[in-house]
């Protein structure tokens, strides 16, 4: 109790509300790099990505290697655009979906930047942006790179079946995107700024079906978005866009309903979903995209561009992640989910 009292006597100056921090000197996202696979390149956002690979193997001997190459390519692209070198980076915050974060570690080995590995599944992009902004605003760094990647083929074999195995996908299944994104945050510079970060709690509302992660993650998105609005005193219409990570079609609808029933607010006019933006409706990807690379690539390539072009002034990126493993769902556990949100402003 004594330490609690001490904490209350000296409140952390940047904390607002229950789960939110507001930055005094909001760091800027000065450059980004995105690399996507061939199917993502054919999608409606295809022309916005820096690189579209010709195939899923990218000339490598394994899909895991291909995923690492994509992440490194995204990192170097962002560095080139910023006119910086790896030596300028104080930290790299990187996460991916593969066991023990091998994509991030092998990529960090190649890029050679001090690294923190993050596991937030598909919520990694916002988790990285929030933590990176804390490092910068806290005075611990001048430049931080936030990076994440996912690869359809590596995720399929880890979470589901071998790639050539024939089975019928459920209509609500989502496709793990082959995509990598890197962003460079700086204490000063031009670009949309990370002004507020809301860290999510793990939420479990009793969904077990690993093909239905959109439905599993919708309550996490509702929890973090509603808490964010409460902590900041903002309303949904204060944002030009609230972009969830990858709830896809059915999770998106569930979030709209949860907003009404649990928050008494209508999110629908400003709500969109990275998992719905990445692919076209004719691309036969089920309910939409998923994977940690999805929200990173869509946010870094499309949303930030729209902000720089003046289409959006204030965007809440609420990236959602399903934190289950093949082991946990085979043992009958429900899917734990999370959502991290960052407010981006120009």
């Amino acid at each position, binding site marked *: 109790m004594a330490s609690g009292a001490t904490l209350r006597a000296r409140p952390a100056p940047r904390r607002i509300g229950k789960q939110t921090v507001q930055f005094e000197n909001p760091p800027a996202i000065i450059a980004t790099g995105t690399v996507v696979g061939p199917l993502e390149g054919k999608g409606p956002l295809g022309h916005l990505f820096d690189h579209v690979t010709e195939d899923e193997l990218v000339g490598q001997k394994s899909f895991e290697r291909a995923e690492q190459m994509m992440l490194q390519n995204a990192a170097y692209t962002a560095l080139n655009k910023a006119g910086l070198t790896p030596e300028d980076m104080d930290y790299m915050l990187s996460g991916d979906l593969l066991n023990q974060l091998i994509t991030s570690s092998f990529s960090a080995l190649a890029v050679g930047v001090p690294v923190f590995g993050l596991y937030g599944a598909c919520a990694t992009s916002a988790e990285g942006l929030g933590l990176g902004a804390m490092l910068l605003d806290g005075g611990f760094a001048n430049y931080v790179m936030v990076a994440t990647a996912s690869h359809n083929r590596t995720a399929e074999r880890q979470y589901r079946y071998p790639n050539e195995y024939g089975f019928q996908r459920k209509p*609500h299944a989502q496709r793990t995107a082959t995509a990598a994104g890197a962003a460079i945050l700086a204490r000063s510079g031009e670009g949309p700024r990370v002004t507020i970060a809301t860290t999510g709690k793990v939420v479990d*509302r009793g969904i077990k079906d690993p093909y239905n992660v959109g*439905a599993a993650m919708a309550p996490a998105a509702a929890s973090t978005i509603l808490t964010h609005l409460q902590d900041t005193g903002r309303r949904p219409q204060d944002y030009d866009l609230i972009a969830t990570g990858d709830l896809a079609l059915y999770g998106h609808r*569930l979030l709209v309903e949860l907003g009404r029933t649990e928050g008494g607010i209508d999110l629908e006019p400003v709500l969109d979903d990275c998992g719905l933006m990445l692919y076209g409706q004719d691309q036969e990807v089920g309910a939409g995209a998923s994977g940690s690379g999805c929200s990173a690539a869509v946010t870094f390539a499309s949303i930030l561009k729209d902000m720089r072009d003046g289409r959006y002034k204030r965007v809440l990126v609420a990236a959602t992640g399903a934190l289950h493993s093949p082991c946990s769902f085979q043992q009958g556990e429900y899917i734990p989910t999370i959502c991290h949100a960052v407010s981006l402003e120009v």
Partner: protein
Amino acid sequence: MSTNQQVSPEQRRYQALAKKHTPKPPVLRHAVAAFIAGGLVSVVGQFLTNLYARLLHLTPDKAGNPAVATMILIGALLTGFGVYDRLARLAGAGLAVPVTGFANSIVAEALEFKREGLIYGVGGRMFTLAGAVIVYGVVTAFFVGLFKALVK
């Protein structure tokens, strides 16, 4: 799968809501596709059986063996060419249940894990999916055999 946790009223409410918003698989379409695809596979199998019976002068019973082997080869080849999974996405059980689906599950695993080497990759992983079929197939055969011996 076991259910090893309590369901809270909040979870139960959300499960119902999620169920309402989750689309149902088009069961009738799947069944029709499986009926047609499974039927076509059987027709090919029957054609091969008749062919072997005539060419190799075998009884229809015996001709089934090379026919099944040929079907397995076809299933494996189509998997290797990357076609089987696309066909099975449409045909569902029509391509999963016949012996070609069994071949697909083994070859798909072997292909997927060949980069982990011949021992731990191909050898160790080949029967990850098919293993369950083999285990329970053998167990069922054992009990059926036992029953048959006892009833006699």
